[in-house]
């Protein structure tokens, strides 16, 4: 039974890899949402599948090498005062600490800039904000350029990441 054995194993492996790709993508999505995720690896050895934020947090924990179970990881996170947002039989998700490249910066925004940033958070384009505020699109764009410069970002999406909870429309 030479080749048939390995063909079946290969078939199973490729199916699992396809599931893993989809799951990896979901972990990346959670990463972009600021959520660290650790999922129990279903194997005899145990261990976790993690996204980038979770692996950074695990590395920060001194006990990382000894954390073997979700409940132990949960205990450590709660003891550190971290907010655990999901815990089930297979998975633990918690709010990640800000990434080093996304440390909040002290933003000195003018009232007009705050107003524009608020509308930006609502998904409005510069031209639409201009209509709402009675300004020209060019003026709004100029305000946005100033906002990007002050926040040290290069586009609207990055700006949104830096100003969560800072402005209201």
């Amino acid at each position: 039974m030479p080749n048939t054995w390995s063909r079946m194993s290969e078939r199973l492996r490729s199916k699992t890899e396809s599931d893993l790709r989809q799951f990896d993508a979901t972990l990346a999505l959670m990463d972009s949402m600021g959520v660290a995720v650790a999922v129990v690896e279903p194997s005899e050895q145990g261990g976790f599948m993690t996204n980038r934020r979770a692996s950074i947090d695990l590395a920060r924990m001194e006990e990382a090498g000894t954390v073997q179970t979700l409940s132990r990881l949960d205990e450590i996170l709660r003891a550190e005062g971290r907010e655990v947002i999901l815990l089930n039989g297979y998975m633990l998700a918690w709010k990640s600490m800000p990434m080093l490249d996304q440390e909040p910066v002290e933003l000195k925004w003018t009232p007009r800039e705050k107003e524009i940033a608020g509308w930006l958070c609502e998904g409005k384009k510069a031209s639409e904000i201009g209509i709402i505020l009675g300004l020209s699109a060019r003026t709004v764009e100029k305000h946005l350029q100033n906002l990007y410069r002050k926040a040290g970002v290069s586009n609207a999406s990055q700006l949104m990441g830096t100003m969560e909870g800072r402005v209201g429309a």
Partner: protein
Amino acid sequence: MTIKQGSSAQPRLPDVRQADLRRVNALCRDLTDCTEWSNLASEFITRVEKCFSAENLAWNEISPDYGCISGWEVTPGYAHTAEEFREPLLAHLPEHPVLTSVGWEGLNKEPLLMSQFVGDSIFRQSGLYREAYRFIDARYQIAFDLGRFFGKPLLFSFNRSGRDFDQREKQLFHLICLRMQEICSHVERRHVLMESRKALLDLLGLDGSDTLGELSSSETVSLAMLIEGNDVGNIAKERGVGRNSQDRMFGRIRERLGLESNLQLRAYFARLKSSL
């Protein structure tokens, strides 16, 4: 992220015939798409008789401490008898000749036959025989421990009343068990990944049946990159696709969410992020 794959080392089972192997592989092919543990057990039980002439077959889930059989699936012909004698079977299980001789550990190396450990006359004096097996009329049993799945050991057993198992049948049973070991491991991984993905999407308020539950992996990755602040051109470059293809992809996502621009898409997830 990596995940350990099951062992794919080819076992030495010289007496198994090509026709047997083809039947076992056909059985396995049908089972590879299972995502639910309960489906796998019932599908296996329904189909395995095409590969192996067992009169009574049981898929036994053992409690984590090996204290008792916590659940079983049996072939239809065996179901009625097995249920009727469930209590005495479980009560006298510690008297099982294989278990008393080699313990549970001995069952995960190779399939073991009861007749390897005890003679007929002695076995007939045991409580296990008098209270249970006598009525089941399945004196000849072969068993194999497949390992732990979902935290519980899984044991396959085949019982027969008429005659014992020969070498070829023992190897065929071993082959089925090893194949099922891989399938079970695969189904467990799939189950964990799919359940976890669903729970994560639930967390974002987007359960599996909802819009984002239908996102492909490339769409999910693109979305993650957009949320992180990459512009569409960079995302396309990073993923090695054309700008137009990338634009169309985001167009499809926006359409599902009822949004009009990528800015609105980013704002949608920014709001979600702050609500977590």
